[in-house]
């Protein structure tokens, strides 16, 4: 039993212990009905006052997103993004599998807030059945119908322009911007794409108000967030944390033994953080920013002392290179070259690895794709070279690497 004062669970509060999804009746029992008496501008105001930000990775203010689509002449469309392409992240799948009605609530309220009549709940096939079951329980509500869509399970599918292009009948690949989805999205209408966890929080903000939402978290980063913890912990899984709470507290809750050497923070577009930094850090972008990190996709992987950070980084870099949409030269060639350089470094091929060239390539690739895929990938690799510089040297000089070979950061 841990003596840690656990954050007030909001989204994951009172989930059934038998692991089955919360039914509509149980959901209404716990949270009450949708506050349909709120006018659209009242809803938007409430979201603005709450300070809710996107829980998909970019932490963009949700109220600004909603406002961006209400001015247009065309009726906007709401897309609930539950694609969660990040391999180390499971929070959106858990949310959709166990508390789908919170997400549907949020989508209905977001639609009401912006005057949308069309809502699409996009997921990969993994959780689609849960979504369909939940939607069947509430076929038509608040005069709105929510449609579900199954998106291909690959890393870039959830990027918002990729998602919009897919929903318009095209491939699930990013498009050149502008136009951004809020300008021209699904069926050409202004489209607001919101992460499913963001929508779940929105559903509670609408019901319980901004002050309630702000009673957890920090003034700048209010509320709770779902975090997926994996790697060297006894109880990997999805945890609901208060933003600004200690990093070490979450690790302890997940059963970390305190011997991790580093943490991958923020998913595959995230940052490696040395344990010495992570142990004193808080789970907020403001505090993690001190180390050049952010919560990002809110996936954390604990790297045990007997693993090699360079080998782990090389594996992720290889995966991200393969997951390039293949559309932009700098991403296709740049990420492949970066992955190959890392591979040479860890394999100790006969050719002497050129770390200088690797670093130059990292600097050259950023900001040159249609989407942020190459940027995220090179940022992760750059942080790996920084945090595991000793390990890089060991590989360069042919000394024994600390890795035991068993992969910690897993890729599909």
């Amino acid at each position, binding site marked *: 039993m841990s003596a840690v004062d656990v954050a007030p669970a909001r989204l994951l509060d009172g989930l059934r212990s038998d692991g089955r999804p919360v039914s509509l009746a149980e959901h209404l029992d716990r949270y009450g009905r949708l506050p349909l008496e709120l006018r659209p501008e009242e809803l938007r105001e409430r979201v603005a006052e709450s300070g809710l930000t996107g829980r998909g990775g970019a932490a963009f203010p949700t109220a600004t997103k909603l406002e961006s689509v209400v001015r247009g002449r065309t009726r906007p469309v709401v897309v609930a993004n539950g694609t969660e392409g990040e391999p180390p992240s499971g929070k959106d799948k858990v949310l959709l599998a166990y508390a789908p009605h919170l997400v549907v609530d949020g989508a209905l309220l977001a639609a009401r807030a912006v005057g949308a009549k069309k809502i699409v709940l996009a997921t990969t096939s993994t959780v689609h059945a849960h979504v369909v079951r939940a939607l069947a329980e509430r076929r038509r509500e608040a005069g709105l119908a929510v449609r579900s869509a199954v998106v291909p399970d690959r890393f870039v599918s959830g990027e918002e322009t990729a998602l919009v292009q897919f929903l318009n009948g095209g491939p699930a690949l990013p*498009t*050149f911007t502008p136009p951004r989805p809020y300008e021209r999205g699904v069926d050409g209408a202004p489209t607001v794409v919101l992460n499913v966890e963001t929508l779940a929080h929105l559903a509670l903000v609408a019901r319980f108000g901004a002050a309630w939402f702000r009673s957890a978290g920090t003034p700048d980063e209010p509320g709770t967030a779902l975090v997926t913890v994996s790697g060297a912990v006894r109880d990997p899984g999805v945890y609901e944390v208060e933003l600004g709470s200690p990093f070490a507290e979450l690790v302890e809750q997940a059963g970390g033994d305190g011997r991790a050497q580093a943490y991958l923070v923020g998913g595959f577009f995230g940052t490696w953080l040395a344990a010495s930094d992570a142990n004193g850090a808080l789970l907020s972008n403001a505090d993690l920013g001190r180390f050049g990190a952010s919560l990002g996709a809110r996936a954390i992987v604990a790297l045990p002392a007997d693993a090699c950070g360079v080998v782990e980084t090389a594996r992720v870099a290889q995966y991200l290179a393969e997951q390039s949409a293949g*559309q*932009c*030269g*700098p*991403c296709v*060639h*740049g990420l492949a070259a970066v992955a190959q350089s890392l591979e040479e470094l860890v394999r100790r091929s006969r050719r002497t690895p050129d770390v200088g060239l690797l670093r130059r390539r990292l600097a*050259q690739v950023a900001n*040159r*794709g*249609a989407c942020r895929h190459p940027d995220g990938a090179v940022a992760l690799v750059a942080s790996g070279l920084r945090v595991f510089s000793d390990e890089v040297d060991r590989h360069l000089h042919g000394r024994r690497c600390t890795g035991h070979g068993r992969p910690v950061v897993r890729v599909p």
Partner: protein
Amino acid sequence: MSELVLRVNPILCDAHGLCAELVPERIELDEWGYPIVDATPVPRALEPHARRAVAACPLLALRLDRVTPLPLRERATGARRS
């Protein structure tokens, strides 16, 4: 006051490289032949060259976009122009 900046659509671009020959002041090529575009404003003297590069791109990937500058950048350009 607005100004002109060069921008490449990386999805369309196929590394023909003509742009870098026509406006080397703003575009260089990476090791795979794809343009690295300097997004600072194109001064008037360079404008004809920039337009020629845009017209020369076989894939219509290069654009000359009119943007409204941030106050800070406007001052910086003003200084460079004078």
